[in-house]
């Protein structure tokens, strides 16, 4: 085993431990948003997809990497937007109308 792989393994294990530790006693109502938030994070695969797109020379590779980039971007963009929409539902208080708005209405 070379140094690089060992370093990669170390990083892998530490990230797993982070993942275990990061989820603590979450109220059940946050389970779905949290799942959705984690779902967006693996959209990072877009970085990898861009790398294979950059080095694609034959047609097959180009097609595969195009699909990969499109898929990954969908994961990222859709994931974050839908999570944000879910979480909007959970704001503690309805935002008080700002004075300016009230004036306008009056």
């Amino acid at each position: 085993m070379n140094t690089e792989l060992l370093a990669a393994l170390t990083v892998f294990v530490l990230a797993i431990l982070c993942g275990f530790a990061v989820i603590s006693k979450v109220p059940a109502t946050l389970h779905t948003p949290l799942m959705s938030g984690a779902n967006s994070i693996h959209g990072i695969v877009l970085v990898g997809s861009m790398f294979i797109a950059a080095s694609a020379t034959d047609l097959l590779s180009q097609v595969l990497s195009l699909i990969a980039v499109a898929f990954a971007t969908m994961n990222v963009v859709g994931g974050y937007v839908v999570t944000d929409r879910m979480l909007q539902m959970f704001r503690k208080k309805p935002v008080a109308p700002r004075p300016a708005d009230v004036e306008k209405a009056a």
Partner: protein
Amino acid sequence: MDPLEVVVRLIWLVGAAGFVLGLMRMNSPATARNGNLVSAGGMTLAILATLVLLAVDGLSATGWIIIVVGVAIGGGGGLYLARGVKMTAMPQLVSLFNAVGGGAAALIAIDDYLRLGGPGAAAGAISLQISIPTVLDIVIGSITFTGSLIASGKLMGLKITPSRPVIIPGGRLITGAMVAIVVIGAGYLWLGNVSVPVMFLILAAALVFGITMTLPIGGADMPVVISLLNSFTGTAVAMAGFVLGNDVLIIAGALVGASGAILTKLMADAMNRSVLNIMLGGFGGGEGTVAAAGGAGASVRELGVDDAAIQLAYAQSVIIVPGYGLAVAQAQHACRELGELLESRGVDVKYAIHPVAGRMPGHMNVLLAEANVPYPQLKEMEEINPEFDRADVALVVGANDVTNPAARKPGSPVSGMPILDVDHAKAIIVIKRSMGRGYAGIDNELYANPKTGMLFADAKAGLADLVTAVKGL
């Protein structure tokens, strides 16, 4: 390492830190939205840094086209879907996004394998260090891809993927065969052989496995299944990171893999199920079991709309208990209307939100918030339970299991699940269509309680009738 690469890697590290800190903040309602933004910020940084690195390293015109077109298609599609979807359809969308993420991870490994083992490549063995993560990435990514698509389809209630458990004739056999192909194929490749056809065979088997694994599971269990597949995608992405030698993929992937696993367990625990049980297809027939009308419905008292309206209108305090039936009937707006009407008559109205009422965690919060029910009226289970003692009427709308007193005694499928203490109220009104059972498929002795009156109706129609009746008083 040239300075640009060092900077890019440091930015990737910052991005990864953003993911962790973001998830941490998403653990509590007050900071959750901000946490998602932190995570998104990390993602943006990581992607921009990658683009700069590629640009400086001289990305070819074709490369640019692929990336721009891909981002445009994927981003546009994702944005369109995420913006347009109804609140209640969000879980299926999450599952769809999860599917494409897993697909992208698998594609990276496939592409890599074609380069190393394809016709144009230099002949020669592929080191274990590459072949292990490559095969794992292909297998896990493909299972996630088809599995999540099926899960999504089940939640949408598509014809080809009905929400009830689908028993395929010989399904176990097919599943077994697929597992065998994957295991033997992987072993063959890891022994040092290089073969593109075998890789494709593994790919195909994993895709089929994803389908046969998910089809037999009932629609009601899907949130847990989606969470599990989400964790799988994380693992696949981490494997892609090993294939490409890229730290940020490894970190983010492992993070999601691990946190997703914990989350899956929490979700299953909250509804008193074990993950293994769900994956093997347990009692989770969901609506499939509704047909079995309650045999214990011996001494049930039926209530007319007008009687119910009078009870509600002249109560001091009413607690509304929404459940899955409210969601199915899309009765949230009718529910809010009744609540407002009662409030305007001076009745104190509150909503009791059970954590697993409905079919996804937070289902009721999302529904009622969509219907603009004021947030302070929504009460969590722990908060509202002591108040049932003082409530005049508990109005149960399409909820069943979450009110079932059988949960307090051992020996039933819901035993041990904390429930709403509806039976402590002075009177109970239950709106549902029949004596049909809920998700757990068991009878509810609450309905036989002398304090309980049953108002048999579709939730939406029943609530609308109540509104009319109260207005007429």
